[in-house]
């Protein structure tokens, strides 16, 4: 048997790195929720924080909003993903959509939300395009479209941003479901395209993308930036209210905030439980539907409807971004003018020079966090390959914990912990905190390509006298260069987008494009928001572009290397 190097410790080390902060952070939040916070005079356990939370008059609506927007956004994203794939996968139109969706991943959530807000607001681009000639509006109408109390705008914004993620996740999972053969059989049996796909292929795809779906659910329920921009405020969803309490001048509200964070965690767990129950119900209903044998051959209209929805969500983000880009070079731009009255580079001249420092910091932090995450993920996968450590299937759940536990529920605890350990507030601590969130996504992206690599190449290499290390570095990683770089680009994007970890762990001293953008965005000036949204998006796109370009250049004469 093979001698064991330090590699077999990789899964345990990775889990410790992932779970340590989350569990310690949760304890650090649970304590004040139970009244323990010595610096604020909380020295004994009390139920007061939860009592105060229950007495807050907005609790009911805030909890309801958290649940409805989260569940609805996930349901819609998943539903649209399913019917979109069912209706169009494998067609030329779908390939076009796929190409349009991929870059959308690189648009930061906040930037996408600002763009969509500008698009749909009563004073926004759509209203401007129709005014005054069609609507007669000289001034924007007083309509509650953005920040509506039902959270519809917020749900739509989340769907537009999560749809690309789920579609790409499903596409990655598709090859294992062998849709081509199944569809051939289904269509030979006389099934319509969509019905056949949903009955024969989707159940297997769903089993593969279940974890990403849960991540979307947890994220949608706990999101803060998108909720502030598009969500209601009277009251806001619970996550936003918790952040508000955390940043209230009245420090005693920290107890209530901690209790709210714990409630948020309970809500996410409840929603996940509900979702699992729903899975069972849908599976039983779907089974019955499949067995009844309906062929559903007249699905033409529905197909075009789904394409419309898919295209609309792509357009919403791209147009929103275009709107922000235009704002960044706008001088005066009054309603109802479709285009700026004057153009000016003033915003770029003013903020451009200030962009370079945070952009460089963002780059270093994201690069370092991605590299660490990549090294750990490759070490885990390689040790799985070498030693057959199959435990990782179950522990994968644990890797997802940082994505399933609301950030606000454990990050303040992590901050206190880092300070207690004497950890400095510099970039190092921030990088490690980013790794916690970057790693699950890197694992998610790289796991399948890494595992599906033909391991006979390793046998051949070993037979040729290559050590496992040489096989990894000289054969496996070069062959997997494209998926490795794609995973790196995804991790890079996740790191660039981190706000709370950077702010809390960095003590405010580590400034990235995202912390700067959120601070500046609190002023609401679309010109500045435009500049920073473009800078953020540009940096992330650079990562994706590199992930596509490098393998193409390196392997330009190697047709046999599959592209990621």
């Amino acid at each position, binding site marked *: 048997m*093979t001698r064991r190097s330090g590699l077999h410790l990789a899964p345990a080390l990775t889990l410790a790195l992932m779970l340590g902060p989350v569990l310690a952070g949760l304890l650090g939040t649970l304590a004040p929720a139970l009244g323990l916070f010595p610096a604020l005079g909380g020295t004994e356990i009390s139920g007061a924080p939860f009592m105060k939370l229950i007495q807050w008059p907005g609790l009911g609506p805030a909890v309801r909003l958290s649940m409805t927007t989260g569940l609805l956004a996930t349901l819609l994203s998943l539903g649209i993903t399913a019917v979109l794939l069912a209706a169009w996968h494998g067609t030329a139109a779908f390939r076009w959509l796929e190409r349009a969706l991929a870059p959308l991943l690189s648009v930061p959530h906040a930037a996408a939300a600002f763009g969509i807000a500008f698009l749909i607001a009563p004073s926004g681009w759509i209203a401007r395009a129709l005014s005054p000639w069609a609507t007669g509006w000289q001034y924007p109408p007083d309509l509650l479209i953005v920040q509506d109390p039902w959270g519809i705008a917020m749900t739509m914004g989340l769907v537009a941003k999560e749809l690309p993620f789920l579609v790409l996740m499903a596409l990655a999972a598709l090859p294992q479901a062998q849709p081509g053969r199944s569809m051939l059989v289904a269509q030979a049996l006389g099934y319509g395209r969509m019905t056949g796909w949903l009955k024969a292929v989707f159940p297997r795809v769903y089993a593969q993308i279940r974890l990403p779906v849960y991540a979307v659910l947890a994220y949608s329920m706990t999101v803060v930036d998108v909720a502030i921009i598009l969500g209601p405020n009277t009251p806001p969803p619970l996550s936003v209210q918790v952040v508000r309490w955390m940043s209230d001048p009245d420090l005693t509200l920290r107890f209530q905030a901690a209790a709210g964070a714990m409630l948020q965690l309970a809500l996410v767990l409840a929603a996940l439980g509900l979702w699992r129950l729903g899975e069972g119900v849908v599976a039983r209903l779907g089974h019955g539907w499949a067995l009844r044998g309906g062929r559903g051959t007249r699905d033409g209209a529905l197909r075009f409807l789904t394409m419309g929805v898919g295209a609309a969500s792509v357009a919403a983000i791209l147009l929103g971004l275009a709107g922000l880009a235009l704002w960044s070079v706008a001088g005066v731009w009054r309603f109802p003018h479709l285009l700026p009255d004057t153009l000016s580079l003033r915003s770029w001249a003013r903020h451009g020079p200030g962009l370079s420092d945070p952009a460089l910091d963002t780059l270093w932090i994201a690069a370092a966090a991605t590299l660490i995450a990549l090294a750990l993920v490759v070490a885990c996968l390689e040790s799985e390959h070498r030693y057959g450590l199959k435990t990782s299937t179950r522990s994968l759940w644990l890797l997802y914990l940082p994505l399933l536990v609301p950030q606000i529920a454990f990050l303040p605890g992590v901050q206190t912990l880092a300070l207690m350990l004497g950890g400095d507030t510099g970039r190092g601590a921030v990088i490690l905190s980013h790794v916690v969130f970057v790693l699950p996504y890197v694992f998610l992206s790289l796991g399948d390509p890494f595992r599906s690599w033909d391991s006979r190449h390793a*046998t*051949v290499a070993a*037979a040729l*006298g290559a050590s*496992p290390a040489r096989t990894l570095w000289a054969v496996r990683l*070069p062959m997997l260069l494209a998926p490795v770089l794609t995973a790196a680009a995804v991790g890079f994007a996740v790191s660039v987008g981190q706000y709370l970890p950077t702010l809390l762990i960095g003590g405010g001293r580590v400034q990235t494009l995202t912390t700067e953008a959120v601070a500046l965005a609190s002023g609401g000036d679309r010109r500045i928001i435009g500049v920073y949204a473009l800078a953020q998006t540009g940096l992330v796109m650079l990562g994706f572009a590199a992930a596509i370009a490098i393998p193409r250049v390196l392997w330009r*004469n190697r047709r*046999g290397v599959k592209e990621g």
Partner: protein
Amino acid sequence: MPQTGLILDTLCILKQGAPLITLNARIDPGEVLTVMGRSGVGKSTLLAAITGTLPPAFQLRGRIVLNGTDITAAPPQTRHIGILFQDELLFPHLSVGGNLAFGLPATVRGRAARRARVNAALTDIDMAGFADRDPATLSGGQKARVALMRMLLSEPRALLLDEPFARLDADLRSQIRRFVFDRAQRLNLPVLLVTHDSADARAAGGKVVELKAP
């Protein structure tokens, strides 16, 4: 003088404690042992045991002895056992020359010397001037020859063949088959061939063992 050849001494592969394959055989240098059996009977598992890449779900009993050395527990890369699969498995990111150089032992030092050995090997298989080619652009027969040559350059002391001719069309199959067996014989290697094609067994000309599910 130590015993030469490949000895599979009361080999038994178990899956979850249940015996899957048992084999007791001795292959002399230059001899071919053909192992036949229906697909799914565990032929590839047998080869994995010999190359040292048996998945952890299996256990191995018995001994594997190569030229007098017990290699049962040796790491794969030190066993000096070459293997060819039905796919050529040329490394797609390396050139044809790069693939051959990968097999060349590190003891051949110096860029020029390694390059010369690679070029000589290419000439040997009638593919002179192919060193910088992308393996994906080769014909099936060329790929098969490069794969064999890559394996031989690593100076193996035994050769395993995992249905290496199954993918080739009939014409090419006999040609490549002859090429492989000739080379192995010239180098006096013990060869273990796994196949379900009786024509392969006939061409090999050696002993034939039928692998059966227990």
